[in-house]
């Protein structure tokens, strides 16, 4: 699955997108746990998810949403446009 990071999350992790292959459907909660194992930067970013929003295929989604390899997931802070 494609994972995108934006704003301070992108900056802290240091990349704007990456691809991950998973075996079975998982929840976003589970994805976050997987990501936290990828290193300190991820661990820091995802240690507090209170200010992290996410989308699945461009739809704002809850962390219990189930996702699979064909999905595009994005993590970002609350938006501040306009």
């Amino acid at each position, binding site marked *: 699955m494609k994972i995108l990071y934006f704003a301070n999350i992108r900056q802290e992790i240091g990349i704007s997108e990456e691809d991950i292959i998973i075996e079975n459907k998982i929840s976003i909660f589970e994805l976050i746990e997987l990501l936290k194992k990828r290193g300190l930067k991820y661990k820091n970013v995802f240690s507090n998810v209170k200010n992290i929003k996410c*989308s699945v295929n*461009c739809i704002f989604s809850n962390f219990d949403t189930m996702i699979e390899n064909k999905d595009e997931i994005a993590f970002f802070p609350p938006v501040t*446009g306009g």
Partner: protein
Amino acid sequence: MIVIQKKSFNYAKELDIFSKKNKLSGAISSFLGKVRDFSNLQKIDAIFIEHYEKMTKFQLSRIIEEAKTKWDIDDIIIIHRFGRLKIGENIVLIAVASKHREESLRSVEFIINWLKIKATFWKKEIGSDSTKWVKQKESDTDKIKKYNTSF
């Protein structure tokens, strides 16, 4: 029409085109947002706007569709910039043409209020001393509570 672009836009010219295109609409309301020279936190020199291109366009189109179900609207334009913007530059323009004033005033407000909550843009303030990502305001989340809308 939704336009998301890096380059600056000409406020007056865009509205001129929009008004001529909707010559017989009795009411045209608009909102222009510009870069201010200060925030709550510091004096700023410029801002940087990042966005999730695919999602932004989709979200703005959903907001437009929602406005159209609520009010009788002739036409809508949203222009939003990204990239580095200097003080005083235009960030966003929203204009709505309708038969009566109520519809256009209400829907411009609706669109900017929802854009602030649902459109995937992120702003970074570039000050003389430091840069910092802007935090979403609680007052902005409050402003959408009055709408009987969820998306």
